[in-house]
């Protein structure tokens, strides 16, 4: 039985108690741990819990046992010449990553780091009570404006899944999830019934700005809501700062560090649903600074935000809605790192076919991100193509659809089934 990650922490750990433990670990393990400790207040409950458990695991080792466990990594660091590097122990930097990646011992180092983490985490698990797992729900929407290719849409998805034919009006599923109807509870109500109490347990991630507006104001728990469209004022301002980064790793690290330290509160740039959420603001800044297209393309933003939310917050519920991107304008395909709305006054023109290609693979990436964690066995993923009135469902281990895949199903019936599976 897997531990449900969001529930485990009962006592508030103190980061100060852990700092001396970090000093006992090999140098290349320290930046990530120190960075998390320095950002303790804006870590999600799961991150605090994971870090506390790791430190608890370290504490279970006697000094000699810890020395024995880490001796190969210490030796490797010596061979790599880490002491001679300009290596930050305070935080992860591009220069750190670059120095590690170009070492001839990089692959060996990665294996050794993984071994140390796994051993420490195993020791922590042995001393932590296991809690009962509940279902995680990942609900993905490819909106009707995206002409998803019927032949290839689900081909690459996990073979354990099932294609579901919807009888029509599949956009109704998103409405039901956000607002509920009659005896069908909305997703927030379902999440609350399932035990969610914390906003970081329910995420709405949207290429446009529809989901949060659709969410019923009577929802029993607030959601963490991120919209690519609503973040535009902040994103434009932030991108302008990022574009000052010179072609130099040290200067880049310095600028990124400064951007992280900037409060970003006084500009009145945040959308209302983010403005009063320090954890969410920090999450957005980290998201943009970690690259992966979150600045430029709304669908990349949705995918990367969902993947990072899964990694960092391990929520019970994620609803992610993809969207349309514009065709590249003259020149912008050669300078794509810029904001093409800013560098060209030509009107935007939708690119539905290619937006669909992007959204299909990125929706699958969200599932793949979820499947990296132990809770994947309790994860229910439903991806709905509104254009095709079709969905693809991957069920928790041991569950089955309960109807023939040949049968078409009404949106209300599908949503009702989804709710039942989530609560079961």
């Amino acid at each position, binding site marked *: 039985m897997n531990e449900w990650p969001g529930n485990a922490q009962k006592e508030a750990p103190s980061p100060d108690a852990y700092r001396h433990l970090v000093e006992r670990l090999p140098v290349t393990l320290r930046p990530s741990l120190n960075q998390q400790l320095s950002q303790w207040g804006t870590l999600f409950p799961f991150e605090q819990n994971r870090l506390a458990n790791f430190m608890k695991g370290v504490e279970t080792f006697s000094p000699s046992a810890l020395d024995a466990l880490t001796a190969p990594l210490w030796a490797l660091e010596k061979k790599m010449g880490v002491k001679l590097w300009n290596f930050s122990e305070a935080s992860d930097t591009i220069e750190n990553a670059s120095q590690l990646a170009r070492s001839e011992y990089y692959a060996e180092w990665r294996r050794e780091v993984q071994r140390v983490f796994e051993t420490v985490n195993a020791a922590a698990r042995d001393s932590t009570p296991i809690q009962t797992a509940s279902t995680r729900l990942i609900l993905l929407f490819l909106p009707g404006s995206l002409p998803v290719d019927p032949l290839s849409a689900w081909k690459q998805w996990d073979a354990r899944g099932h294609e579901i034919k919807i009888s029509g009006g599949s956009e109704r599923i998103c409405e039901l999830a956000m607002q509920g109807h009659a005896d069908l509870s909305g997703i927030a109500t379902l999440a609350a019934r399932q035990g969610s109490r914390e906003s970081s347990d329910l995420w709405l991630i949207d290429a446009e700005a529809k989901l949060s507006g659709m969410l019923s104001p009577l929802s029993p728990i607030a959601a963490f809501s991120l919209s690519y469209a609503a973040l535009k004022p902040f994103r434009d301002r932030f991108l302008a700062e990022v574009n000052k980064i010179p072609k130099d790793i040290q200067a880049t690290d310095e600028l990124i560090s400064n951007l992280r330290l900037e409060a970003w509160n006084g500009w009145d740039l945040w959308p209302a649903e983010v403005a009063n959420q320090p954890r969410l603001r920090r999450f957005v800044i980290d998201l943009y600074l970690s690259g992966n297209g979150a600045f430029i*393309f709304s669908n*990349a933003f949705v995918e*990367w935000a969902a993947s990072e939310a899964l990694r960092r917050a391990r929520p019970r519920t994620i609803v992610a809605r993809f969207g349309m991107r514009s065709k590249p304008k*003259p020149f*912008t395909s050669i300078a794509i790192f810029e904001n093409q709305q800013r560098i060209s006054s030509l009107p935007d023109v939708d690119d539905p076919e290619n*937006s669909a290609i992007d959204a299909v693979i990125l929706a699958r990436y969200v599932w793949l991100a979820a499947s990296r964690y132990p809770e994947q066995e309790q994860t229910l993923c439903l991806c709905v193509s509104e254009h095709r009135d079709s969905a693809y469902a991957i069920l928790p281990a041991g569950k089955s659809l309960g109807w023939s895949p040949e049968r078409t199903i009404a949106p209300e019936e599908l949503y009702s089934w989804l709710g039942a599976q989530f609560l079961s």
Partner: protein
Amino acid sequence: MDASRRNLLKAAAILLVDQWAGSRRRVFAAESSSAAGKDERKVIVVACAGIRRAETFSDTGLGNIPHLYRELLPQSVFYPFIRNAGATSHYNTISSILTGNWQRLDDWGKTPPASPTLFEYLRKRMELSQDNAWLISSNKALTSRIGASSMRDFGPRYGANVVFPKQLLINAVIRAASQGHPEHSADRAAMQSELEAILQHADNYEGLGWSVSGDESFLDLRMQSSMQQAIEELVRTNAPVTGDEFTFLVSAEVMRRFAPSLLAITFSDVEVAHFGSYSMHLAGIRTMDRLVYELWNLVEADPSYSGKTTLFILPEFGRDLDGSSTNGFFNHRSIDDSTSLTWMMCLGEAARSADVVERTVQHIDLCPTIAGLFGIKDLDLPGKPLPGLST
């Protein structure tokens, strides 16, 4: 790409090479234009950035490479497995290919390769002029330092011409944006002034994209006028322009003018993957496929190249596996085969008998192989000459 944009890019490419040739005449007037040139053996290496086998030579990817698969594969020596065992970053990989040693340098090209490049071996051993060694790149991760090593007995005096044509177009866009002129990229006359400013202040390689030691690189009025006209037409069209198209056209012009013995071309349209657009990444692969085919047709049609040229085509590395913690196709950071194992194709003189060599080879095997094609066989390099080729 429509004809007007193609013609415009071609005009721009000719202008760039004109500019280079003019400045070369001023700066290197005393250097003899020695050896090789139009009659000797030639090698072209095309590195096409990060492309996975999954999107190319696999059941799911063949549709993206119709020319490589249908037209070129049957006449090639094909290596289905080539391993990049070095750092899978652009600068390190291109340096490793060129030097035959796994390079572990600053990823952003602040330092030159730590061992001699093919350009230097060839120019020193064969006493070739600089006209015979070129690297033309779309990739902004490279710098001009890639053209010659830091080795004392070699170095820049035996290095290559390094050209970044795409940088010119980028600079025009960036300048317009940085000056707060977003309307310029939609207005021909306004864009002209942005370009003019760039051309008039192009006093270094980072500005215009070519490397000529000590040269001030001013464009003369005729070239400026032609370039402005080219940009006018570029702006008038309402479709994107790719950097690889421009790199190809500059490469073709260099081939026509100088017929260099060794030409390395790096394409990078596919790197839009870093921004998360899979459709644009696939479009980049299809552009690369078409440009490589056009390049080969050019080789076969040009008497300076036909019958004496060997062409190598290879991705620098793959991209990360779907589901990897590094976000799949977006990046090339992981250490699994999806990233480190790719393919290579060899066409032309050294590939007289079409073959598929199943044995896994390495990127560092290219350097001793190419050196061998030029008769340089005594290099002490970790790589081994590629099997299956006629030397």
